[in-house]
């Protein structure tokens, strides 16, 4: 990975030294101090005195002497005339790493559409978007109470601890936890609760488990440092007692991604709460209920503790309640339409996202039909679209020889009784069927092409056509689907 990082940098001569320092050296925090003394930075610096730099004094001083010039001059220049002189990319990068440049997106040229000009259906569609999380989640009151009691207790007691929350995707885990934390933050703002810090990481937003240290440290100070450095700084912070340390709540989403073979990251994240100096409360979220037993080491499971909570999939009643709560008093949906969505989704997965997406698609369908209210028919169409099975459709739309090829694979499976067929056997069947139907027989080379086409569509699973007559072919659709698709067409 270092190699890949290195390539763009190497071409830029000026930045070379600076960036190396930021990445590798232990003393990045001391360098900016030279330019402009900042209190917060100094605190951090006093907190952390790297051992490495003491050992490597000569190298450090040498590096400093080479690096001070490029490192300090631009910072002086930018503070003085930040607007006038455009920054070089490496200066910009330095600012980004120091957290002094907030990332931004390009803005629209026109203003967004006003709410008052939107139709009822459009408003309903916006309300139904998954991103519009309601202030209080319906049907998750018990879980809310549970997590609230846990976190409030931990914050009041100033002790630290762990919790494991699990459940299948789309059952309101993250929304509930962040809802609890928002409530607690409001309380602490009103001084009804001791103040606490809130950090949040997501395993899937990291490129590798160790980047968790970088992200946590970044949320504490805003700086981006290497993971080794971030790790030692965090270790320092959590293991050494410091007066007036506030409680820290750390939310870890997608815990299973943070587990690697060594499990050092998960171990550290769950070990810090056991230290009395760190008032750290860790809430971990994952999908599988038995993750601690299945994947984690014994010592990690032990540290995770037994405070656990499982989010059950939504039942059809709950899904219905969720959708009607989103709609508010709007009349855009018929009652039975919502019920149909809820029942269909609850039977498959109990995923709230799925229900909301289907409802949104139904509003779109009603919109194109220029009706003001979503009825059962629209919902049925949306359901058919989104719980799609297009295999029969695909077989019907194959060319004639492709259809014959599929029939031949099915025939060969029935003949041999084994699921796996070879191309040679299938080709013999093609010969037979083609003779029977009066179609000209494709040469084996062309039949290989048919096979590759069907394999690309995944109607069959086939090997690379290099092994020619001996490649193995599996049927990826059921033989009944083939018969259904081809027979029903014949009758018409």
């Amino acid at each position, binding site marked *: 990975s270092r190699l890949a990082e290195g390539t763009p940098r190497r071409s830029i001569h000026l930045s070379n030294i600076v960036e190396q320092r930021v990445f590798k050296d232990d003393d990045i925090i001391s360098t900016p101090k030279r330019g402009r003394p900042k209190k917060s930075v100094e605190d951090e610096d006093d907190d952390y005195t790297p051992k490495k730099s003491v050992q490597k004094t000569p190298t450090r001083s040498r590096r400093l002497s080479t690096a001070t010039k490029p490192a300090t001059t631009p910072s002086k220049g930018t503070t003085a005339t930040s607007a006038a002189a455009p920054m070089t990319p490496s200066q910009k*990068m330095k600012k980004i790493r120091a957290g002094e440049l907030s990332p931004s997106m390009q803005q629209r040229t026109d203003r967004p559409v006003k709410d008052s000009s939107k139709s009822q259906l459009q408003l309903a569609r916006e309300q139904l978007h998954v991103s519009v999380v309601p202030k209080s989640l319906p049907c998750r009151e018990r879980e809310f109470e549970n997590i609230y009691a846990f976190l409030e207790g931990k914050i009041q007691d100033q002790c630290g601890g762990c919790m494991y929350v699990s459940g299948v995707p789309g059952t309101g885990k993250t929304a509930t936890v962040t809802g609890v934390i928002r409530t607690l933050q409001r309380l602490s703002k009103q001084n009804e609760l001791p103040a606490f810090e809130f950090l949040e990481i997501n395993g899937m937003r990291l490129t590798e488990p160790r980047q968790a240290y970088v992200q946590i440290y970044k949320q504490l100070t805003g700086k981006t440092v290497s993971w080794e450095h971030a790790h030692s700084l965090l270790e320092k912070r959590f293991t050494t007692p410091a007066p007036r340390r506030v409680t820290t709540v750390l939310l870890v989403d997608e815990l299973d991604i943070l587990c690697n073979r060594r499990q050092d990251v998960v171990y550290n994240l769950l070990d810090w709460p056991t230290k009395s100096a760190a008032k750290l409360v860790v809430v971990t979220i994952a999908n599988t209920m038995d993750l601690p037993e299945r994947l984690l080491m014994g010592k990690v499971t032990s540290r995770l503790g037994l405070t656990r909570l499982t989010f059950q999939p939504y039942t059809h009643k709950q899904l219905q309640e969720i959708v009607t709560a989103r709609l508010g008093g709007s009349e855009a949906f018929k009652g039975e339409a919502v019920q149909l969505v809820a029942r269909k989704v609850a039977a498959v997965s109990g995923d709230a996202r799925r229900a909301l997406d289907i409802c949104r698609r139904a509003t779109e369908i009603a919109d194109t039909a220029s009706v003001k209210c979503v009825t059962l028919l629209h919902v049925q169409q949306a359901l058919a679209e989104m719980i799609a099975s297009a295999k029969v459709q*695909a077989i019907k739309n194959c060319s004639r020889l492709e259809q014959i090829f599929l029939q031949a694979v099915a025939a060969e499976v029935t003949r041999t009784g084994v699921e796996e067929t070879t191309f040679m056997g299938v080709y013999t069947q093609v010969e037979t069927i083609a003779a029977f139907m009066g179609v000209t027989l494709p040469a084996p080379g062309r039949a290989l092409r048919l096979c590759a086409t069907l394999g690309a569509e995944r109607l069959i699973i086939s090997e690379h056509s290099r092994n020619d007559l001996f490649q193995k072919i599996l049927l990826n659709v059921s033989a009944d689907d083939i018969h259904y698709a081809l027979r029903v067409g014949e009758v018409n």
Partner: protein
Amino acid sequence: MPEAVQEFAKARRFLKERLQRDYTTLRGYSEERSNVRQLLQRTAEMGESNSLLLIGPRGAGKTTLINAVLTDLLDNKAFVDNTLIVHLDGNLHTDDRLALKSITVQMRLENAADGKVFGSFAENLAFLLQCLKSGGKRAKSVVFLLEEFDLFCTHHNQTLLYNLFDVSQSAQAPICVLGVTCRLDVIELLEKRVKSRFSHRQVFLFPTSDQLEQYAALCQELLSLPSNSSLKSAAERVNSLQMLRSEALSFGRRHFDPAAYTFDSRFREGWNKQLAKMLASQPAQRTLQTLYDFDISEAFLKNFLFRLVAQLREESPHITAEQMSALAAQYEGDDKVELLCGLSVLELCLIIAVKHHSEIYDRDPFNFEIIFARFSKFAKVSTTMQGVERSIVLKAFEHLRIGELILPVSSGSGNASGKVQKEFEMHKMALTYGQIQQAVQRYQALPTEVAQWSQSSLI
């Protein structure tokens, strides 16, 4: 008549260019097209976040549909000003690191300068997510086009897909994730949390030319010359594209430009009339039928027509049904038989020996010794093959192997085959008996002995 010749050359160039470089004209699929168009429009105007998968067999016009929709929308100034388009391709962006760099460049984020991205992979991801998070409803919409979507599913942890879908399902900058793939079961490749975040909108594109008539009509449309007025309107459309050339539109650059062509009306009418007459004839219909039976996609037809147009000469300036059927016969032909006909008599003798062995032992594998013994038995009694040395036969055997007419049994690792001496390595035959028979019949000046031997293994 040099004028007619000129006109003809122009027509040929026009047809070729239209077949190859017309990236934005889509035929049919009106419902799917309006579906995608409305989705993109809502993303741009309302700031809605969406995700969609476009699924269909290869050559069905998936990319053309997107290009066509984008061309429609690029006329709309509100769309152009408020959206960024990010193209990603699973074949080019083989891992998330490359994809992320490309996104950073195409979105012109602050850590990119002149197409060069600074920082590590982890930093890039964090920066992109921060950017998207910082933008709300006021930020520009971003349309992510992921071609060969199924290849993105093979990336480590599906980090990129998770994050894109996650942004589309949370209150951040409005984005639209548009995946394009030919795999019908692509949803099964998604991890469950990625699948949950995907909105399950799928648009299926199947070439709908259910009947041969539509196929023939398409063929006629692709070959006929349009009227000058329709050329002009098409040219206007393309010009509106070229206004946006500087944008990262991959298809805007070398697009087919109809403005360069105008046709003499007499010539055009003559051409179209001749064409319609030819296509209505029986042999042409039959040719189309065979093509249609094999592959119904437009891409395949275009390939065929390009070869047809390329064959046109000044001496015979019209496409004839004979040309069509001759070309189709080339498609029908068997390349392996051609290859067999190019072998020497000795190599063909070995193939026949292999065939006899396979027939007797029901396609059991063979090695050089077995085949050489069988061949020697024939050579001893034949008049032409008597003095052939073993080393020459071995060389011929190796030729067959390099031509992949026979394949080694232990496919895969080459180490295992290295241990066995090459005379004793087991092989299997990659030919059908029918192909060998055809080759023996078609072989030029085959000695009668060999032809007779091929009929029966008894000597």
